[in-house]
């Protein structure tokens, strides 16, 4: 009986969680005139016009491409620099290590609004304004500390005897790291990539500030539509639905690793 009550509660919560998303899906399948014309719980004549518009209009679909480019660059940079650093933090004691670690974490707490204007000036002065690399580098501010934090947790779970044995066998540090150590913690690398991807994908303020046209992310294109007069709800809903798709794909592929990662107690 008790178990049943729990399950019912959970089912109700999941229902409430999905209703707003369903509502956007409903809107995305109707034309704007249809939406404003009458209230309907489900679309009576389904139309894909909104989606077709997004996929054929360059000012819309380029937003998705831009977002994916800078998110990917950011994930790669974050992982490449965070892997050796996390190894150093998990294996070595060195001058100022604790302070360094805390300083890194404070960057995760920095309000993006504080950094928006200085970033604008900094990237203008080095001529990187409106490029994918600028957004990717700026997102490193919060993703690199996070990556170091998560990876350090996974690396500390690997016994140090493995390192010692490899060194005795004549492995150099880089060779050991790439051929033995990284494969050992690949679940951790996966989880880290997942979080870097997620936080870079959802961020709006910095990405919007640093781009004008060439690298404009989909998030910023959507806010531009909102401020315009005569809001097209159908189009907006369709664009919103499409921004959820990469997240859904990531969850779907990561669902088994997630359970494993959670069992390790590190998120």
């Amino acid at each position, binding site marked *: 009986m008790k178990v049943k009550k729990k399950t019912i509660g959970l089912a109700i919560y999941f229902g409430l969680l999905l209703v707003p998303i369903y509502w956007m899906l409903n809107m995305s399948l109707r034309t704007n005139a249809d939406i404003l014309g009458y209230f309907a719980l489900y679309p009576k004549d389904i139309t894909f016009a909104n989606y077709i518009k997004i996929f054929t209009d360059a000012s819309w679909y380029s937003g998705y491409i831009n977002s994916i480019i800078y998110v990917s660059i950011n994930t790669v940079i974050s992982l490449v620099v965070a892997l050796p650093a996390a190894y*150093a933090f998990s294996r070595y004691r060195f001058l100022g290590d604790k302070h360094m670690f805390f300083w890194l974490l404070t960057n995760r707490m920095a*309000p993006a609004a504080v950094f928006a*204007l200085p970033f604008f000036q900094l990237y203008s002065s080095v001529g990187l304004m409106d490029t994918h690399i600028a957004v990717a580098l700026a997102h490193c501010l919060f993703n690199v500390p996070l990556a170091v934090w998560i990876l350090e947790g996974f690396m500390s779970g690997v016994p140090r005897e493995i390192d010692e044995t490899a060194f005795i066998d004549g492995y150099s540090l880089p060779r050991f790291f790439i051929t033995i150590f990284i494969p050992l913690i690949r679940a951790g690398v996966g989880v880290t990539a997942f979080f870097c991807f997620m936080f870079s994908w959802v961020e709006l303020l910095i990405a919007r500030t640093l781009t004008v046209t060439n690298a404009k992310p989909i998030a910023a294109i959507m806010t531009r539509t909102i401020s315009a007069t005569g809001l097209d709800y159908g189009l907006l809903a369709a664009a919103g639905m499409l921004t959820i798709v990469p997240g859904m794909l990531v969850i779907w592929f990561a669902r088994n690793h997630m359970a494993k990662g959670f069992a390790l107690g590190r998120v």
Partner: protein
Amino acid sequence: MEKWENNKAWFLVLPVFIIVAFSSIIPLMTVVNYSIQDIWGPGQRVFVGAEWFKEMMASKRLHDALWRQFLFSGLVLLIEMPLGILLALAMPKRGWGVSASLVTISLPLLIPWNTIGTIWIIFTRPDIGLFGAAVNNFVEFDHTARSLDAWITLMLMEVWHWTPLVALLAYAGLRAIPEAYYQAAKIDGASAWSTFWYIQLPKMRGVLTIAFLLRFMDSFLIYAEPFVLTGGGPGNSTTFLSIYLVKIALLQFDLGPGGAFSLIYFVIVLLFCYMFYQALQRVGKGEKV
């Protein structure tokens, strides 16, 4: 486990240091630079010392935004922490349900923040939104016109968006408790409540600390969702610190006050995170004894 003492490890940390310093120290120095000068054009600036800080500290609008922010973060923590723990307790522990509930519950976390705002605009509009229309059958509800309604909508959105994070972390904590603890509790005839209070809650302390800190930080820094949903209005009723700061720094381009505001904001966040962290650590130690 004793770590190796080796200062050469710095070379491994160096790339991280360079890349984060480029994105953090240089901009922060720029902000400090703004905050102590009055800048009214390229090359035209005068040193004003702590003038901007005094002005911002005395600013009524900043105080209002700050209290609003505290109220918001406080409510968020008050609702999301217990709800997240309850959800984690209710989630299945084995079988196909584990993957299914993990996937469902993480869904809101992977939606871009401004899409979250969009979803809730569409969902709560009195004319076309399911929620808005349903509530309007009973009482008048319009988040663009009345500040209480705007707050309710924002809270609902925030709880909808971020409770899953608390739930996921709490679930991770629950999964890490060895089965032997439950067996021992069963032998002692412990009730469900005392099992929760004496075993599950203390064992979840670590992850709940992380959840609490992350939720505090992120709700304190919230920008995109209220920006899209209410734009800080109606009036100033949902103008939180980030929204106010962006108004000053990026829209009005008041560099001096914006810089001073930024530094005050940053210091408040750091201070609170440090205090919470220390307090939670101490509570944790007390429980062990």
